[in-house]
């Protein structure tokens, strides 16, 4: 395992409606590894993920202090620097949510959506990328004949893999997953765990999970949250 650092978090505190959610979090995450974030509910694990891609910024009455630096395109960059474009950041630091959230459009369009946002217009290139992303997410064989179907007709496990494929299509450097398997059955969970292990070579994965078994099965490092900060 490489020990190169990918993400450096320093003195991070976060409050929502004047209630502290995170207090003085200092932590580093290694490159090309899976780090599991565990701990009881409500200790700020999901919030912590959102501080890495600035997704919390649309919440009213939320406040954050501290710094987050991520090595993007080979050099460390302060995520909250004024020169950092939030849309660019989110293209490099992708996120998958607890409940699968396909957009109300076809499977193909869902995967191509980030490409469209990035201004890509070449249809052949997009088709190629869509196939590549679906293959990475082990979903291609199941959906290749029905790419034009509404993505919401897929099963829960398939929807979640679709969301992972969609997050991967822009080739992010970091993948954040917020309890991605908590609404799925055992078979789907196994498929997704295997998928994540296969992705480790390409990117850095942070996974919030309640399942200790899952954590020990796939993670290289475990970070435990409690009492609004990291205890180990």
């Amino acid at each position, binding site marked *: 395992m490489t020990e190169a650092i990918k993400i450096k978090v320093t003195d991070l505190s976060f409050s929502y409606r004047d209630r502290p959610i995170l207090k003085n979090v200092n932590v580093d995450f290694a490159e090309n590894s899976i780090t599991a974030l565990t701990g009881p509910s409500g200790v700020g694990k999901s919030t912590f993920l959102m501080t890495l891609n600035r997704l919390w910024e649309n919440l009213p009455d939320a406040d954050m202090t501290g710094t987050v630096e991520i090595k993007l395109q080979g050099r460390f960059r302060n995520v909250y620097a004024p020169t950092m474009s939030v849309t660019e950041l989110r293209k490099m630091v992708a996120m998958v949510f607890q409940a699968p*959230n396909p957009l109300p459009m076809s499977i193909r369009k869902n995967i191509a959506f980030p490409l469209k946002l990035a201004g890509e217009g070449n249809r052949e290139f997009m088709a190629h990328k869509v196939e590549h992303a679906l293959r990475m997410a082990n979903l291609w064989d199941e959906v290749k004949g029905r790419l034009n179907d509404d993505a919401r007709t897929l099963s829960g496990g398939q929807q979640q893999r679709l969301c992972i494929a969609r997050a991967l299509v822009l080739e992010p450097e970091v993948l954040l997953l917020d309890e991605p398997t908590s609404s799925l059955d055992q078979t789907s969970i196994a498929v997704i765990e295997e998928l994540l292990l296969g992705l480790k070579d390409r990117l850095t994965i942070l996974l919030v999970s309640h399942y200790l078994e899952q954590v020990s099965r796939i993670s290289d490092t475990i970070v435990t949250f409690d009492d609004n900060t990291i205890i180990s």
Partner: protein
Amino acid sequence: MKKIGELVAERTFLLSALASSSITVAILAFMVFMGLPLMKQAGFYQLLVKPWAPYQGSFGIYPMIVGTGCISFLSLVVAFPLSLGCSFLIATIAPKPVSKGLRRLIELMTGIPTVIYGFVGIFLLVPYIRELFRSGSGLCVLTAALVLGIMITPTMTLFFCDSFDRIPRSYLTAAEALGASRTQKLLYVILPCAKKGMLNGVILALGRAVGDTLVALMLAGNSVRVPGSVLEPARTLTAHIALVIAADYESPEFRSIFACGVVLYLFTMMVTFLVRYLSFAEGRRD
């Protein structure tokens, strides 16, 4: 005990439902019955396509249908971009307190009596239009359409806001997490999802524009000729009814306004059915 109470309540509700629905049907029947002599004499279709020239014995309402069509269509053209901007500001851009305040204000605006809009139009807009184009009195299709457009904007805006609010939060979060800018979120997620609700809003606002009487009566100039441009005066069906209603009750002029009534009635009915059909289609899809 409870059974009897329920039965009474059920019957009362049934009765009030029957009463209100039968009144709706009765109004149509009444208008057709009252207009029948003239419709028989001249033919309903003839009434729709002939000009209004009472001294030549022609009681056609064609100019008024054209006037209503032009003014209400133009008012939609005015109201649509205004409403889109307002609702997008309220639903996504403005900070919470501002958007709440704006929404209350717009809700308040839906309650302002039409006559106030007409008044403001006469004193502020009519002289301005007269000076600006130097053609006619300033009482014209354009003036009426502008004021009517502003009048229906609140209704349309509230409908747009509601359909934006109904978009599942997860779609918006998904788009944000994938790096969508605000504009992209609007174009690729919000508008496609809200399309049907917005169409409902447009149709209902159109219904309001067609049904409104006072704004056109006060501002459109009420000429009975078919308007040749937006700077010429015109008369709407509703204004026509209001103007002719003082005529002798047995006269064909008076009879002709029932034809106007039937046309308006059929139009609003069409609008209602269209809205029903669209909401049904939307309900079925989800």
